[in-house]
């Protein structure tokens, strides 16, 4: 039976099955079944939050879990009017932190990775090991000393206190170095230099266009990691109007533990919070070059 799904295979499929007389396309039931169970497991909570966000508070605790309710519009109205429109503010904050942070982080990481991959200079090894140490060091354990230092210089509680620490990503620099090493031929750089181009021009005109796929990957990874970050903004910020979505929803839920009326707010909030990111991932799926991550490994 011929398959109709377009497989994303990059290598040609084998035509011989190795057993004469075997059908050319044996149906594989078990792999499909296992994969579908996995897909179901991953989609159930998402489906649940979408359905639960249509329920009014009373329906939430009385009707069957996967039966849609009648309260979607009320829930949305409550969500966006909560605390004088705080939710929209949180969403905007998340967008600012993740948007600006990941764009700047991508540029900074790319420049550093390019230098590490394409130049030999005194101190290169030290820099490289410092970055590896940074990759292995859990960033979260630094959040508290970072907060104390921010307090010292009077930045704690400002947008900068969340934005600045997220501009440095040792892993992003590592990926940029791997990618620059693979994608930018030294001969091309040398040729441009002979033509009289300076280092800055070699970088902007020659290297950057070649580095775009890698940069997109670093950008996406960093965007998701800033968007999903909880502890850093949780520690740094005290003004509710500056919270990103993660911290905002958390405070909503902890307030709601005594008042179930806030449950439906937390649920609709979660639904609205994940939809844009899921859409972004699906749209940009083609641009993920995660082979970078394992491509930098030596087997």
């Amino acid at each position, binding site marked *: 039976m011929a*398959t109709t799904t377009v497989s994303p295979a990059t290598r040609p499929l084998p035509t011989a099955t190795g057993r004469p007389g075997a059908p050319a396309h044996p149906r594989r039931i078990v792999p499909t079944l296992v994969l579908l169970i996995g897909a179901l497991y991953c989609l159930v909570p998402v489906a*649940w*939050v979408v359905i639960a966000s249509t329920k009014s508070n009373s329906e939430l605790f009385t009707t*069957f879990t996967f039966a849609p309710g009648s309260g979607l519009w009320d829930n949305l109205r409550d969500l966006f009017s909560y605390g004088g429109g705080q939710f929209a503010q949180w969403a905007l904050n998340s967008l600012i932190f993740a948007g600006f942070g990941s764009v700047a982080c991508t540029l900074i990481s790319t420049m550093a990775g390019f230098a*590490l991959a394409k130049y030999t200079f005194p101190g290169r090894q030290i820099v490289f090991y410092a970055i590896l140490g940074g990759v292995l060091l859990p960033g979260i354990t630094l959040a508290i000393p970072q907060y104390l230092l921010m307090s010292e210089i009077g930045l704690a509680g400002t947008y900068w206190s969340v934005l600045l620490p997220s501009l*440095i990503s040792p892993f992003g620099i590592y990926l940029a170095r791997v990618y620059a090493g693979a994608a930018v031929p030294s001969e091309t750089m040398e040729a441009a230099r002979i033509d009289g181009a300076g280092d800055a021009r070699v970088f902007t005109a020659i290297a950057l266009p070649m580095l775009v796929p890698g940069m997109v990957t670093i950008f996406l990874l960093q965007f998701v990691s800033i968007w999903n970050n*909880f502890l850093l903004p949780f520690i740094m910020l005290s003004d509710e109007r500056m919270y990103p979505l993660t911290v905002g929803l958390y405070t909503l*839920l902890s307030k709601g533990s005594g008042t179930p009326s806030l449950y439906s707010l937390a649920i609709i909030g979660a639904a609205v919070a994940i939809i844009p990111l899921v859409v972004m991932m*699906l749209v940009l799926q083609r641009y993920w070059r*995660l082979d970078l991550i394992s491509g930098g490994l030596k087997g």
Partner: protein
Amino acid sequence: MSAETTAAPLERRTRRRQRARWVAPYTFLLPAGILFIAFLAIPMVYALYLSFRGLRVTGDGPFGIQEETWVGLSNYVATFTDPEFLAGFGRLAIYGVIAVPVTLGLALTFALLLDLPRVRGARFARTAIFIPYAVPGVVASLLWGFLYLPSTSPANWLLGQLGLPELVVLEGGILFGSVANIAIWSGVGFNMIIIYTSLRGIPGDVYEAARIDGASEWDIAYRIKIPLVGPALVLTGLFALIGTLQVYGEPTTLRPMTNAISQTWVPLMKIYRDAFVRDDLSLAAASSVVLALGTLVLSVLLLRITQKRTFGES
């Protein structure tokens, strides 16, 4: 650019070029370097400094004043002798023993299945399994929390309809499985994609000979594919390990839903409490240093044991 220059300016220009060549890499590294020093190196050193300081009462009589002074290793002694901190590591170990192998095992299984020729629904499954990566940990905990909560759980609704007793998953031993499940759900897709892209990078003709020799897909997966994606497995294992030691958001988010999760359930929660609830910054700093160094040591050990030069040496 044309090279219509006389000898002298050319020489000058070459010299300037060479100086520029020497300066260039440092210029490219400057922004990252400044940020690295400001937000990674200095906080680390500052945490170390704080961890050796503490409030001690100085002066005589009942009206001694509290002053911050050098206290040597006493914060570290307090960290290692604190039963709550050690218990937190114990809970973390149970959680990790569940979360890490299951996440990696599922990720590897799904990646190998996706890599089989002619599997229906592979594309849909790949996308669906990857979606949780886009869901923040706090939101994931909130979703699962509601699925666990007896009053909103679909499993309990069914059990209730059948007149069976409720299932309680946020208490006792099963709690570890419930918290680990959130991490597994969040992590499987991303790890699967890393292993899958690594599988995709293997040239197909490697399998051809094996297929002609009559090897089954199972043999190929077990004898050829898994050894070849070893480095990807090491890397995903490393990230899973680092992620495990940093668990904070998930149990913290679940706390309002159950009494079984204390304020100090995992080490990072206790560090947070010491720093912000009890204002004992020195103890929090010492515990942070212990946690960071522990992570570093475990990571290096893992890389050593696997004997792979995982990070390509320049």
